[in-house]
């Protein structure tokens, strides 16, 4: 397996290396600068002392000259004074020798001076003290040599001091530059290290972000490629585990949903046969009124009504279950609006008459054909009208209209009943929901009618809506698309006669 340190150890190593480099460069630089400074100070002190000693050597030589050749008219040359001056000279020369150190130029200048002085003392001073006058040429030459070599030592010392100062400056500058370069190098190394770290995270983090977005978008099969530093890889694995769990849950939910749909479908299907039988026999009994006594007839009638209600409910449930399972099929074709609306109106009229409600049906002239399954649209209209019939009070007015609106035909059922509140309107298309106001306790029905109406209208590619103000009635509207090449509705003779009949 490839070496793949964790994010924390990468960071730790990075900081450690950076810190060590900075410390090393700083310590080396400061140490070096300190050393340069100390050396410089040592040199300056040494050269100052050497200068002092060369002055002393000069003075001692002058005293030696004075001892060997005193000023005229003063006193005689003195061996004692010469010896004392010579001793001073030697002492100074010894100290100067210690100070020259490893400076070869100064060392040889000093040796030259000592040798010249020794030669002068031997050949000029000692003979003078002994009373032998040396030749003026020799004396002048040897004296000059001593003086010259003394000057040479003084000059050499001064120039050595200047050199030392220049060296120290140069050294300081170089060291400072080196430290700066070292610091810059350490920072650069750190930069490379950290950008490497960031780069190693960028790709896997990018994949995680993209994966999370895809997952949020609903693609539950999303998995990310695991990679990068240990922590990021762990995050990737955790992400994949989460996606696995989400997908498992979704599949389980789908399975349960499917089971529920199948269950409702099967149960309502199985219920249909016995209900049909009960309803059939009950209807048969009510048709034999003469052979039943009043109580028996009443019982038969209740059984017939209840089983009819049960049958309606089972059919509604089946419709919804089929709709949920995507098995509710419609067969849309160009359908004339007028006969359809009138037919439903005719079927519903007895219910309105029973409650003394005023029921009007109006279809706008030349309404085009709609692309629809006639039976299903009739079912929607019947559901809406049943609703109005039930919820509006006795004597209320209920209107059924069909008008063209743009590329669609709008069907509207409106009443001037109690209406619905805003909150109720939000739930009016929910399953098993029923308005809780007024006379509703005596209102039967399954609470499925409007939910089915909504499913059916949407299956047609239309839309349904409810409008109401509390106390001022309610209006339910839905629109259906106009049939391609649809003809305006012609009122057929048969339809006209029948439409006229009940009203």
């Amino acid at each position, binding site marked *: 397996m490839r070496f793949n340190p964790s994010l924390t150890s990468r960071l730790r190593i990075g900081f450690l290396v950076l810190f060590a480099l900075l410390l090393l460069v700083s310590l080396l630089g400061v140490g070096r600068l300190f050393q340069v400074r100390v050396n410089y100070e040592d040199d300056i002190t040494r050269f100052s002392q050497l200068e002092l000693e060369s002055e002393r050597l000069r003075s001692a030589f002058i005293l030696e000259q004075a001892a060997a050749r005193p000023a005229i008219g003063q006193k005689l040359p003195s061996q004692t004074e010469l010896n004392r001056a010579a001793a001073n000279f030697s002492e100074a020369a010894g100290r100067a020798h210690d100070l020259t150190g490893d400076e070869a130029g100064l060392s040889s200048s000093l040796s030259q001076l000592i040798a010249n002085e020794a030669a002068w003392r031997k050949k000029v001073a000692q003979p003078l003290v002994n009373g032998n006058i040396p030749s003026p040429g020799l004396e002048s030459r040897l004296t000059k040599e001593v003086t010259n070599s003394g000057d040479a030592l003084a000059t050499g010392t001064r120039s050595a001091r200047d050199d030392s100062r220049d060296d120290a400056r140069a050294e300081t500058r170089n060291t400072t530059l080196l430290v700066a370069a070292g610091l810059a190098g350490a920072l650069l190394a750190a930069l490379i290290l950290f950008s490497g770290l960031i780069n190693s995270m960028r790709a896997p983090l990018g994949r995680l972000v993209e994966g999370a977005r895809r997952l949020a978008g609903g693609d539950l099969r999303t998995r990310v490629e695991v990679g990068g530093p240990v922590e990021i890889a762990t995050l990737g694995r955790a992400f994949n585990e989460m996606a696995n769990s989400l997908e498992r849950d979704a599949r389980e939910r789908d399975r349960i949903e499917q089971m529920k749909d199948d269950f409702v479908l099967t149960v309502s299907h199985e219920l249909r046969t016995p209900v*049909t039988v009960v*309803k*059939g026999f009950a209807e048969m009994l009510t048709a*034999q009124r003469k052979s039943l006594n009043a109580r028996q007839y009443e019982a038969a009638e209740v059984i017939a009504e209840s089983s009819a209600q049960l049958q309606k409910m089972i059919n509604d449930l089946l419709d919804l279950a089929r709709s949920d399972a995507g098995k509710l099929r419609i067969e849309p074709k160009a359908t004339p609006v007028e006969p359809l609306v009138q*037919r439903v109106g005719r079927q519903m009229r007895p219910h309105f008459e029973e409650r003394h409600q005023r029921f009007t049906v109006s279809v706008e002239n030349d309404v085009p054909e709609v692309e629809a399954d*006639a*039976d299903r649209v009739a079912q929607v209209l019947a559901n809406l009208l049943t609703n109005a019939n039930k919820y509006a009070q006795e004597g209320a007015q209920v209107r059924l209209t069909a008008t063209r609106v743009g590329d669609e035909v709008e069907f509207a059922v409106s009443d001037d009943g109690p209406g619905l509140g805003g909150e109720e309107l939000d739930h009016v298309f929910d399953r098993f929901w029923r308005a809780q106001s007024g006379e509703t306790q005596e209102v039967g029905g399954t609470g499925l009618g409007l939910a089915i109406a909504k499913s059916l209208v949407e299956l047609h590619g239309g839309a349904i809506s409810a409008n109401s103000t509390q106390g001022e009635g309610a209006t339910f509207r839905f629109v259906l698309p106009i049939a391609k090449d649809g003809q305006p509705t012609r009122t057929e003779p048969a339809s006209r006669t029948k439409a006229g009949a009940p009203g």
Partner: protein
Amino acid sequence: MTRLLVADDSETVLLMLERRLEMEGYDVVTATDGFEALERLREAGSQKPDVILLDAMMPNMSGTEVLEQLRIQGSKIPVLMISAHLDAQEPDRMRSLGASDCIPKPFEWEDLIGKIEELAGNPPSDGDSSPDGDSRPDAG
């Protein structure tokens, strides 16, 4: 008197249909599957039924199989198929198999009587029998 042959696999449904149709004044013969329906037809001899009501889905031999058999034999007796399928294409499918008409389960009693009367060739009754005779636009 109009004679009917009714086949349905549910005995209670069959009993209900028999009693109600008898009450309506029909002469009813029943069968619980396709084989039995063909058997009753043979037994009937010359007293052939005027209309046959067949449940489309039955065990052993289904209504559609009986229908095919009848058409192969050249029988001209009108057949009314009773189908539990709510599929919009079902009536067309049944008709293409040779059914004279089709009524979906569950049905309103008046609708059933209306269709039987129509197939039996009886003149429409003047009363309340069928305001829904035209309730299926694809029926005509």
